[in-house]
């Protein structure tokens, strides 16, 4: 009992082959799209490598590989479908078609995995950003150390571009020393007092770098002595909302990347649905062509199906094949061992046939 059987006339088969040829070429284009989406994501992640503790390479690499494979598979599929119109040319591909369909089936499964990975990347990314930003803020002042000299610039550009401040909020800057000792006057009593009042000898202030300043503020930016209301005229830091950027940079970057990945994930899902439909079409075409060959008449109608028997039967059959693959090396069933048959009568009843001798 075949699964989803459809009868195809000769014209139907030809049309199906032509349509599939076109669709396979469209799929090559979608494969290129997948590849470029993966490349785009990779570039976006590499751009902010300094702000992540662990670079997320799995998702973009997966998309790139899947995109390239899609191009190759669909290119081959296009060639096969082009030849399927002619039954003589189909014979060339007959043996290759079933392995091709099985490979494509697993490949479409990979596309689905790629799409789902896009949505699941968020948690990894959040942790990576938390640790990365924490380190970046810690090394903000180290503009004289090789390897860390550009972190200040990266952090400033990030805070200006995304209009964010600090890791979770602007208060993160109060807990780290972001002014290097090179620019601190150690003879100044105020500086010395601050250093002494801190357990680890760090110069901590209630101030933030200039890049935290909000663009929408009505007054010139207040970036030092933020929590000290009396230091500034007509200022109450609890009511002041526009002075500094309120959002944390972790939140800002996470939103940015989540948006990118949701769009990419949606596109990949659509491409997956498209690939599945192409695969179904190719399977129908393959079974229809094989049945035509079996019937002998290239112009006759033939049946196409997804599976010859029901799903359970096909599964059992394939499972048996896999089981027997393992069994051929077992001693019990070695065909070379002479095992006497259970019934002697069966041997006697075998008619003796005379073999004609050629003259």
């Amino acid at each position, binding site marked *: 009992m075949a699964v989803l059987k459809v009868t195809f006339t000769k014209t139907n088969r030809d049309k199906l082959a032509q349509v599939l040829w076109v669709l396979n070429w469209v799929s090559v284009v979608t494969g290129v799209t997948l590849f470029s989406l993966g490349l785009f994501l990779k570039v976006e992640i590499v751009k902010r490598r300094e702000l992540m503790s662990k670079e997320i390479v799995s998702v973009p690499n997966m998309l790139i590989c899947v995109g390239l494979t899609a191009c190759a598979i669909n290119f081959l599929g296009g060639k096969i479908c082009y030849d399927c119109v002619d039954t003589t040319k189909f014979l060339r591909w007959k043996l290759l078609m079933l392995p091709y369909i099985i490979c494509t089936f697993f490949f479409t499964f990979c596309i689905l995995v790629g799409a789902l990975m896009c949505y699941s990347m968020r948690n990894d990314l959040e942790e990576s950003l938390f640790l990365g930003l924490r380190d970046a803020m810690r090394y903000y002042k180290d*503009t*004289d150390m090789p390897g860390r*000299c550009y972190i*200040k*610039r990266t952090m*400033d*550009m990030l805070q*200006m571009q995304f209009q964010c401040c600090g890791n979770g909020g602007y208060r993160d800057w109060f807990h780290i020393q*972001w*002014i*290097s000792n*090179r*620019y*601190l*006057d150690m003879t*100044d009593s105020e500086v010395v007092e601050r250093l002494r009042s801190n357990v680890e000898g760090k110069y901590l202030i209630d101030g933030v*770098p*200039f*890049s935290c*300043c909000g*663009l*929408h*503020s*009505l*007054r*010139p*930016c207040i*970036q030092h002595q933020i929590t000290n209301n009396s230091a*500034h*005229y*007509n*200022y109450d830091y609890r009511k002041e909302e526009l002075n500094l950027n309120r959002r944390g940079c972790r939140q800002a970057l996470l939103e940015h990347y989540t948006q990118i990945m949701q769009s990419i994930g949606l596109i990949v899902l659509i491409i997956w649905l498209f690939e599945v439909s192409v695969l179904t079409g190719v399977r129908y075409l393959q079974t229809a062509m094989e049945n035509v060959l079996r019937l002998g008449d290239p112009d006759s109608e033939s049946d196409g199906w997804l599976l010859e028997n029901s799903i359970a039967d096909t599964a059992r059959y394939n499972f048996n094949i896999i089981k027997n693959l393992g069994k051929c090396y077992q001693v019990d069933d070695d065909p070379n061992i002479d095992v006497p048959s259970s019934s002697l009568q069966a041997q006697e009843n075998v008619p003796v046939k005379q073999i004609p001798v050629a003259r």
Partner: protein
Amino acid sequence: MVVGKMKLTFQKRVKLAQYLWMLSWFATLGGAVTFTLGCFLKTELRRRGEVMDNTDIHCVPNTLMIVGLASMGINYFASRICQDALDPGRFPRWKTFLKPFFGCSVFFTTLMLISVILSYAMKGSLETSLKIGLKNGIRFYKDTDTPGRCFQKQTIDRLQMEFQCCGNSNYRDWFEVQWISNRYLDFSSKEVKDRIKSNVDGRYLIDGVPFSCCNPSSPRPCIQYRITNNTAHYNYEHQTEELNLFIRGCREALVYYYMGLMNTIGAVVLSVFLLQCSVLASVRLLQTSMEAVAGQENVEVDSEGYLLEKGVKETFMEYVDPVLKLLWMNQVTPPEAKAEAGAS
């Protein structure tokens, strides 16, 4: 005195028509590109329209857009003409259309050349406009509570951060303007009172700049107040400090940006102009050579094509006279009638 006479065999005419058809479609594409570039330039100019004093510079993108549309129309008709040119039955219907067509085409092609020249020549006007616009922007920076000026602060801050510039000519422009509003100045403080008293106009001027002048590439935290006071900051000398603030003035940055855009656009439009000229010359040659064989039984003979039947000046007068007559008709008494009345 014929200009540009050329002998064309039948084969040459056929080839000319074929190449011309393809060329005219490329020229249509060129016209579309010109229109798009004009739109893009206009959008870019409008984005920073708040720091420009006048809109004189907008004549460049406006001309480009008009010329682009006209070019698309001209080249579309050119392709239709050359399609019908080799068919002696269909060609005569274009006869009355051709003279105004060539008149308009030459006019718009000249306009295209003018727009290219303008895109290079408008630099001075742009610079003046930006000078005044930026001066006003910096002056009204503090007026975030005055309607109509409340977004100047945001505009100038965004501009300085995006173009990595400070002030009009340089950061010292901020020293001459009060950019901190009186609302945020403590008038009971001695320092504030001293500063205001020492200034002739009663303005609060400081040697400080807004935060948007700070350069992220600086190795030290930004020094934006008491810039010229070396003792106010540890290990600081403002004459040698180059990375602390943006050195470039915003006027220079914007002029550089817009001139770069307009130079590129000018180069592209110049090549479209050359393409357009060749299309028009080819259509004219094809038309005149086809007219020479019109009415003859055997259309496969050689014929002569030319660009202009008379000299350049005479042809120009021939086209301009009908336009002038049209303009004179609107007058109450034309000058010739006056002279005649006077003579009689």
